[in-house]
Every structure is written in C-alpha cells, then in structure tokens.
C-alpha cells in the first residue's frame, strides 16, 4: 500500500487527479465542441514547435558560424565524438517515434490496452535514449572532451590541431554539450508527459472521439526526434570517419 493510498481514499485521489493540469477530459467553456477543442490544441502545439525550431536553430547557427571560420578544426573535433552511440540513439528515437504514432493509431481505433502498451514502449525507448546518452557523456568525460573541466590541450595538438585553433575545438564541444543537453532536457520532459498519458489511458480518459492530449504529446515527441535527426549529422558526422 503506497503512501498516497494511506493518505487519500480512492474517491479523493480521483478528485485530485481530475483537477490536475493534464487531466483535461472535459470540454472547456470557450470551445464549441470536442473536435474544435482538439484541433485548437493540436494547432497550439504546432505553433509552440515553431518556436522550438527557432530555439534550437540558434544553436545550429552558432555551430555553422564557427564551421565557416575554421571548417577543418571543427571537422577534426567532430571526429572525436562518439558517433556509434549517436547513431544507436538515432535509431532508438526513430523507433520510439514509431511506437508513439502506433499509440495514436490505436487510440483512433479505440484499442486502449494497445495505446497503453505503445506509450510504455515509447517512454521505455526514451529512457533507453537517456541511458545511452549518459554512457556517452561518461565516455566523453573519460576522453577529456569537457572544455573548462576536463580538457587536454596537448592531446588535441597531438591530433594535429594547431594550438591557435584550440578555441574552435572548445567552442564546438561547448556547443555539443549545450545542444545535446537541451535535447536531453526535452526528451526528459517528453518521457514525463508520455508517462502521464499512459496513466491517463489506463484510467480510461481517452476514447476514439477524444484523445487530443495524446495527439499533442505525439507532436511534441516527434519534434524531439526531428531535432535529433538534425543534431546527429551536425555534431557527429562533420568529418570523414575511418574504420
């Protein structure tokens, strides 16, 4: 018996839950109908994603600017990133996107158990992504790829980077951390929302007529995937790899 169950009765829990931010199963007063509300919500998410495009776009502009200044150095720095884990993570996120879209597909067909299962898979793959990311960060730490904390100028000079160009290496790595860091934050938020959606599904909040929160969550999840689709070549694949 969990702490929550000792504190609140089932009815109280239900009442509390219905007042939470995400439990919007009712029609709000400003809308004419449920489809109207759903379409508006989806449009709102699209507009929000447009702002996210600009948010991440800024980081890509910065990478591009320094690539223009010193393409060879940035290329050399890119080769040191762990493209294998980056590639695995690309696959993980793509598959999780499929799971998400299958969850919505199931919702459209009113197969609530399937919805739940696919949402759990989505969240699970998201967590797998974060685990791989953590592993990659750990390896980066071991390989002295953290400018300002664990970074060895001599190593890079030995790799053929001119001492005067080390600034570009550090800036590229700084942008790598910022970019993947912000992306990981987005994934974490996404996992949280997907888990909430799974719980709501379990509680029978959705139907074939109304699954707008699922739809909106899906848009967000796919967007996070798209960001990674661009992050991957921009950070990991700038140079010529050799086996």
């Amino acid at each position, binding site marked *: 018996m969990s702490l929550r169950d000792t504190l609140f009765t089932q009815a109280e829990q239900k009442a509390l839950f219905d007042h939470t931010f995400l439990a919007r199963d009712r029609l709000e007063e400003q809308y004419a109908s449920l489809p109207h509300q759903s379409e508006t919500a989806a449009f709102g998410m699209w507009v929000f994603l*447009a702002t996210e495009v600009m948010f991440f776009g800024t980081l890509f*502009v910065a990478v591009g600017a320094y690539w223009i*200044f010193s393409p060879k150095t940035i290329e050399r720095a890119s080769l040191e990133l762990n493209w294998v884990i980056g590639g695995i993570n690309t*696959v993980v996120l*793509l598959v999780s996107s*499929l799971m998400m*879209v299958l969850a919505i597909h199931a919702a459209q067909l009113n197969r609530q158990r399937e919805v739940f299962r696919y949402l759990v898979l989505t969240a699970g793959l998201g967590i797998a992504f974060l685990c791989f990311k953590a592993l990659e960060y750990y390896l980066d730490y071991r390989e002295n790829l953290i400018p300002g904390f664990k970074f060895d100028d001599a190593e890079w000079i030995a790799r053929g980077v001119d001492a005067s160009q080390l600034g570009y290496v550090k800036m590229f790595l700084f942008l790598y951390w910022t970019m993947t860091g912000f992306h990981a934050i987005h994934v974490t938020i996404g996992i949280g929302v997907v888990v909430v959606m799974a719980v709501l599904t379990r509680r029978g909040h959705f139907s074939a007529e109304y699954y707008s929160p699922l739809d909106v969550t899906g848009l967000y999840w796919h967007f996070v995937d798209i960001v990674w689709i661009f992050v991957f070549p921009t950070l990991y694949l*700038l140079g010529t790899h050799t086996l």
Partner: protein
Amino acid sequence: MSSKITPANTYIVVLIALLVLTVLTVGVSFVPLQPIGHVVAGLSIAALKATLVVLIFMHALHSPRITWCVIVASIAWVLILFSLTYADYLTRGSLPQMPGH
C-alpha cells in the same frame, strides 16, 4: 486530430525508410569528402528524414492548411536567421583592410 486513419503498415514502412537513411548518412561519413560535402550530405539526408516524420508521423499530410502555414513559416524563419547572419560571416575577409582597397 485527423479524421483519416493511416494504416499501421505505412508507419512501419516509413520507419524502415528512416532507418535506411540513417545508415546512409553514417555511410556517407566514411566517404572522404571536403568539409562542405559532409555538411551538405548530412543536412540533406536529415531534411529528408525530417520531412518523412513531419508528413507521416506528425500527420501533417492530413492537417489543415493553417498547420502547413506554421510549418512553412518555421522553416522560412530559420532560413532567414541563417542566411542573413551568414551574409556577414561568408563575406568576412573579402575586402582587404588596408588603404587603397
């Protein structure tokens, strides 16, 4: 929310295409190219993948026209940010900083 339901098989086919493109983009990174070649190849394949995700997974194909406007606007504005910032960077050093130039 689209009223039209896409068959689940479509999604699986799209995923396979996305995975193939991922393998392709990694493969290209083993081909010795100029720096610009890697950038162009990587970003083109990424754009292709993103298009698939937006159109099929995000149901943009069956979305109202106004959603398309949002998509186009966000792409256009990122391009504005890029092109006009690089209008400065790409022309750096093109004029010598000395008398007579």
